[in-house]
């Protein structure tokens, strides 16, 4: 009651000021890093970009590609040329017109800016050709099935060439894009404020005058802000708070299974510490996997809100290999495998995990389950940055780590298990897997790709360098006056069609 009074008073104040300024307040789990799509590395940064920077293409909730700044595209015969038609009448926030020249500039910046983190994502583009004011062609050395999906993320976000040329690598302190909202101001660790861009091409779908992103790291406090009416949308309600959120009449909840996964990465070939029974013998890794009841893990730690998993893709993904369903727990089989490997009385292994609540709880459940199969797990808790460094350097035996997930299936496997993969911390190397995964990148035929990934899955299941455990579910908390919100598996908060009824 008091909350509504306060809200009422605030609104009265707002109307007295003359404008019906509708400000949407969104609470994020952490603060974004630098707001330059080419340099950005955080997940929450991408949430801010959803309102700030339009991309060439976007995805539907079913993970299909649709045009945003591009309207149509087509490949040539041998999949080495992608021709795109661009949307006309679009301007950047500073008035610079959006056209093919701007796209060409953006791709070049992503590839050549020293600080760019997008280089590997657009590495397959060898050149661009401006065919007309609103037509551009991307030339590739060989087919790249992942390219369009990359252009649906940061690599495809178009920034104003005028602003970028002026600011160089400092573009992030005053980003200029072409999204529905323009950058207004930012106070580090406090807020990011965007205001409505009047000339947005899809302005009809936008119902707010401003958006304020507030980083609130503590889960309880973030939800409390929603319950007290201080924010309208909350990013990542924790699974344990789900019941409380559902029970609150002022709050609605939306969810979607994420594209990513959480699991245990085993050091099988990254330096000396790979010389452990676990690292050298796939049977022990399979035994570990068999000793875990993934559904129970989900129930215990996440109240059933997340999804059990045994592959990089969740069971509801079109890329999930149906030939390898999530195994039920089989302690006898696990013990048999251990005996076969020469450890009938079990063995001890070390697994490092970040010292935050969720990973610790997950590992404790896994520890309890594995113990029954004879595998004694020593949990080594490390602070995240330390753990990451040790993992990269190979100074670990196994690590509880995950991946936020990418739209294209390649993004969830290739760099982790191919021999020269950029994030292959496990050191796994199998020439057949390399061959299959590289081939899957170079064809646009979905059925063919699926077959290739499934073949690779057979080998990866047998070798199990990564033991997948579960897939996080994105859970958003919304004020009950919010309507039109659509949950997306990539965890992004898209504001088209979202409105706040008072």
């Amino acid at each position, binding site marked *: 009651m008091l*909350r509504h009074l306060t809200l009422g008073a605030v609104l009265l104040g707002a109307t007295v000021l003359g404008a019906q300024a509708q400000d949407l307040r969104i609470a994020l789990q952490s603060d974004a890093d630098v707001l330059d799509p080419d340099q950005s590395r955080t997940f929450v940064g991408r949430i801010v970009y959803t309102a700030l920077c339009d991309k060439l293409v976007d995805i539907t909730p079913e993970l299909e590609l649709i045009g945003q700044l591009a309207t149509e595209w087509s490949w040539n015969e041998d999949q080495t040329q992608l021709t795109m038609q661009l949307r006309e009448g679009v301007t950047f926030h500073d008035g610079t017109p959006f056209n093919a020249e701007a796209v060409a500039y953006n791709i070049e910046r992503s590839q050549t800016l020293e*600080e760019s983190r997008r280089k590997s994502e657009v590495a397959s583009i060898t050149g661009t050709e401006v065919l007309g004011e609103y037509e551009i062609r991307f030339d590739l050395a060989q087919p790249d099935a992942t390219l369009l999906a990359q252009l649906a993320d940061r690599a495809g976000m178009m920034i104003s060439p005028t602003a970028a040329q002026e600011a160089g690598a400092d573009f992030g302190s005053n980003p200029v894009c072409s999204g529905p909202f323009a950058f207004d101001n930012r106070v580090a660790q406090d*807020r990011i404020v965007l205001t409505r861009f009047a000339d947005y091409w899809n302005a009809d779908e936008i119902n707010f005058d401003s958006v304020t992103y507030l980083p609130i*790291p*503590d889960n309880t*406090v973030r939800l*409390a802000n929603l319950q007290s009416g201080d924010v309208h949308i909350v990013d990542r309600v924790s699974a344990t708070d789900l019941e409380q959120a559902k029970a609150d009449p002022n709050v609605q909840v939306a969810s979607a299974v994420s594209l990513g996964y959480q699991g245990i990465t085993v050091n099988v070939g990254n330096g000396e510490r790979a010389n452990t029974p676990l690292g050298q013998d796939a049977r022990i890794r399979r035994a570990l996997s068999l000793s875990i009841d993934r559904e129970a893990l989900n129930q215990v730690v996440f109240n059933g809100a997340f999804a059990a998993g045994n592959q990089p893709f969740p069971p509801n993904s079109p890329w999930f290999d149906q030939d390898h369903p999530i195994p039920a727990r089989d302690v006898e089989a696990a013990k048999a495998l251990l005996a076969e490997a020469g450890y009938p009385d079990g063995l001890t292994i070390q697994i490092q995990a970040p010292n935050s609540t969720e990973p610790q709880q997950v590992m404790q459940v896994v520890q309890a389950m594995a113990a029954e199969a004879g595998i004694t797990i020593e949990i080594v808790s490390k602070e995240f940055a330390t753990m990451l*460094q040790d993992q990269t350097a190979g100074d670990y035996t196994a690590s509880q780590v995950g991946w936020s997930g990418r739209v294209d299936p390649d993004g969830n496997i290739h760099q982790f298990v191919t021999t020269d993969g*950029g994030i292959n911390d496990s050191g796994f190397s199998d020439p057949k897997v390399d061959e299959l995964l590289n081939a899957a990148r170079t064809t646009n035929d979905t059925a063919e790709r699926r077959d290739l990934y499934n073949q690779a899955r057979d080998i990866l299941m047998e070798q199990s360098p990564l033991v997948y455990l579960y897939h996080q579910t994105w859970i958003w908390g919304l004020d009950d006056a919010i309507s039109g919100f659509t949950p997306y598996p990539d965890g992004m908060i898209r504001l088209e069609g979202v409105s706040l009824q008072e």
Partner: protein
Amino acid sequence: MLAFIGRRILVAIPTIVLISIFVFSLQQLLPGDPILAMAGEERDPETIEYLREKYGFNDPIPVQYVKWVSGVLQGDLGISLRSNQPVTELLLQKLPVTIQLAVMAMIFAIAIGVPMGIVSAVKKGTVLDYAANLIALSGLSIPNFWLGIMLILLVSVKWGLLPASGYVSPAEDFGRSITTMLMPAFVLGTALAATLMRHTRSAMLGVLKSDYVRTARAKGLNERRVILKHAFRNALVPIVTLMALLFGELIAGAVLTEQIFTIPGFGKLVVDAVFNRDYAVVQGIVLCTAVGFIIMNLLADAAYFALNPRLRKQ
């Protein structure tokens, strides 16, 4: 007096230098590579190497330190790795927030702690004394973060009286700025009030036994005048010392409270900087805090002179 202050400033300089060397070296001992921590999920080796060069991480540590010091002497405290913002700018953004929180917390602490301490001393041994001590003990024992979350759940969610968290600058909206800071200031203030109360009590007890208080009573002055004008004023010296030290601590940043209430002050900044291995930011904050502490101590000493005429003759 001026000579005294001058001497103190001279002593302060080597102190600050030593502190900065100490913290600089300690940071290097921390496991975890700053560039890798910054990299997050995407770790392209080429870009990482470039960034290492750019931020000077390939230089030997003494060289890095000297570069930092020469930067400081020119007013340049370096760049935050995470946000690309100059550290000086970050500190200037956060300082007013921290000072506002510190001042409000101090007001709560003094308003609660000092009167309780006086009452407790004057009514020593009675129910009031025990009650005040109990409250003080609770204030010291209850963890900040628990009290903070409980208050948010009760005051913001249940009663809807105050905003749950966040910060509004006084320039933007003074009223809302105060209401947003009320709970965090209260949480911080109660912990300090407890300490302040105990010290006020013991200072008062010491003074109430003295000759001049007996004389004042013998002269027939009313009890309230005796306590407040004669006893309390003389008890002020240790209390003022403590307040200066506590304020110095507050400037260092109330880490937990700022984390819970999402107040963008020094505490939150330094915690995030350590986790992100943002060395330049940590150094900058340590420098700022050390200077702040030294100034507070200086002010406390100056206050002695003001309060105690006997010291002025020295």
